[in-house]
């Protein structure tokens, strides 16, 4: 067995405190057919028809489900005109990013796939599970109505992921390098997408060309990555013993938390050019600033909760070793505080991911914005349902994947196990 000591300890704990066995489920057990049917009948009686009002509820729900499924499925399979999606898949994914430069988006995806594979390998994910994740994500991409070239690209990314996974398996020494690489992947991505003024190979693609899911993801990732360090500083500032600092941080946090996101984004849009008139800061960057400002206030509160969860004895032990307070924070307190708030940070990321659709008010076309402009096109008149269902599905798949991976990250960091 290739499990970490922490996992072993957890195994041991779950072995000793196993919950009472649940009544046997009739599904998937290896019993002969007749006994299985009888078990199924017993299960139905016990769970669906235990009392008369439960029975009525069951029948009622089944009726509703039937109606919804009947009409829903008929619509999805027969009536809906899905042609609108493949015809607009490129704007939905990347907005007006130039076709000739699309390889840069693929290069970003390839980088991320390779890094994910290497990380899954080096950080000791179970092979089967990691492979299933990779395959699942690749399959989700392949379900999209993409061109043959794009499909080949997806497969290439999947290949990189797999190669990384196998290549890095058991190489713990790679871990610090990977953490560094993840940090660098962020500026690298922006560099690739944005390019260099006047370059042949990587011509500048102004952010006004960015759009669709690409813009949605970039806004969310930039928002989270920038707001985490700012949030940490704000949380530490709020606890500072210098009243001026603590007062300023508290005021910032409370003002922002008392303002709706739309207003913050809109104000960033209007005010940043007033404060910095000498720079022409483009719309996307202004939106990023707005989201970062908003999210960092919430992040600060998350981190503050994490800091409060670290026992006083930890501070004392660190001080007793002669550490000064920055060292104590960085080495002892923050690692514990941040581990404790990984779930809420990921929750924050998911809600930011969905909230980025608000950039519509400053005229940016993110996934939802593109969807809106597609249905405004006379050619696709009356196809709101198809387009919005598709956009909704993408939001859901990504949010759900994130929240599932949050649990894995929590486990990997030992949020529960090590205390």
């Amino acid at each position: 067995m290739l499990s970490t000591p922490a996992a072993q300890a957890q195994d041991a704990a779950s072995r000793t405190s196993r919950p009472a066995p649940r009544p046997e489920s009739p599904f998937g057990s290896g019993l002969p057919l007749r006994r299985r049917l009888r078990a199924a009948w017993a299960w139905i009686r016990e769970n669906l028809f235990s009392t008369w009002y439960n029975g009525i509820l069951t029948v009622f729900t089944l009726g509703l489900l039937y109606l919804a499924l009947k009409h829903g499925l008929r619509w999805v399979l027969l009536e809906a005109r899905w042609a609108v999606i493949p015809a607009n898949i490129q704007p939905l994914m990347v907005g007006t990013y130039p076709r000739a430069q699309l390889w840069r988006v693929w290069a970003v995806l390839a980088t991320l796939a390779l890094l994910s594979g290497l990380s899954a390998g080096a950080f000791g994910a179970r092979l089967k599970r990691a492979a299933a994740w990779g395959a699942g994500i690749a399959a989700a991409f392949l379900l999209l109505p993409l061109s043959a070239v794009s499909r080949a690209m997806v497969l290439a990314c999947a290949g990189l992921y797999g190669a990384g996974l196998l290549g890095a398996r058991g190489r713990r020494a790679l871990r610090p390098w990977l953490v560094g690489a993840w940090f660098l992947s962020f500026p690298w991505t922006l560099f690739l997408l944005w390019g260099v003024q006047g370059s042949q190979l990587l011509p500048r693609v102004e952010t006004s060309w960015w759009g669709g899911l690409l813009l949605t993801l970039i806004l969310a990732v930039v928002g989270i990555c920038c707001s985490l360090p700012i949030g940490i500083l704000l949380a530490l500032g709020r606890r500072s013993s210098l009243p001026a600092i603590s007062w300023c941080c508290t005021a910032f946090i409370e003002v922002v938390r008392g303002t709706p996101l739309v207003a913050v984004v809109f104000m960033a849009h209007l005010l940043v050019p007033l404060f910095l008139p000498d720079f022409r800061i483009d719309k996307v960057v202004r939106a990023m600033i707005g989201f970062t400002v908003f999210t960092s206030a919430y992040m600060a509160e998350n981190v503050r909760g994490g800091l409060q969860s670290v026992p006083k004895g930890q501070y004392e032990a660190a001080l007793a070793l002669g550490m000064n307070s920055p060292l104590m924070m960085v080495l002892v307190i923050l690692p514990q505080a941040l581990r404790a708030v990984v779930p809420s940070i990921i929750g924050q990321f998911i809600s930011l991911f969905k909230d980025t659709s608000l950039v519509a008010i400053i005229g940016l076309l993110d996934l939802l914005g593109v969807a809106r402009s597609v249905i405004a096109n006379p050619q696709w008149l009356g196809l709101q349902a198809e387009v919005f269902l598709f956009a909704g599905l993408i939001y859901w798949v990504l949010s759900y994947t994130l929240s599932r991976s949050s649990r894995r990250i929590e486990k990997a960091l030992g949020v529960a196990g090590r205390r």
Partner: protein
Amino acid sequence: MTQAADPIIICEDVHKWFGDFHVLRGISVEIRRGEKVVICGPSGSGKSTFIRTLNRLEEHQKGRIVVDGIELTSDLQDIEAIRREIGMVFQQFNLFPHLTVLQNITLGPIWVRKMKKSEAEELAMSLLERVGIPEQAHKYPAQLSGGQQQRVAIARALAMQPKIMLFDEPTSALDPEMIKEVLDVMRELAHSGMTMLVVTHEMGFAREVADRILFFDQGQIVEEAPPAEFFDAPKQERTKLFLSQILHH
């Protein structure tokens, strides 16, 4: 004995208040280099508070404390310098749960003493050897028993190569069968010549190891004597009462 007579800790009329509550009411004591001092007394008498003022986890408000020639004031540099020379072992161990045993021990030497990582790890392993658990080096604290955790905590404090070790009821949070393994480590440390201040109710340990016993009550040192005298011929009524309670319960 001239060198041994030179005091490493000097307290002169130390007072401390928590709000209105007068916790330390004029503590004056000198501790010589290499001396082992056991502090005992009823709960709430200010024992923890007193030894925590010595490395300034608590601030005293009146009087003077001088440790190894440096007076404790609000000067942060001085405080950090003094803390490097004083190891502390807590009742609740206070190991860092996110780090392995080895990392717990090397953290101070690497970041505070600026020791090379390889050197620090070598030192840590030799200390783990000394406290008897080298095989646990790569586990996390939560995977160890209480006694093992406390021995790691002792190793962590020793890794800073301190001149003085403070123990605040190091065995009070332990199951009875683990107390001995921790006391054995402390005994060995005492024989190696370390200056030690130990708050404890382990009277057997006190009698065997201590050069001197300080009896605290209501924020004052009520009685101060070598163990034989302290246990067999206490002078103060309060000491007698305390000893009768602690020895016959």
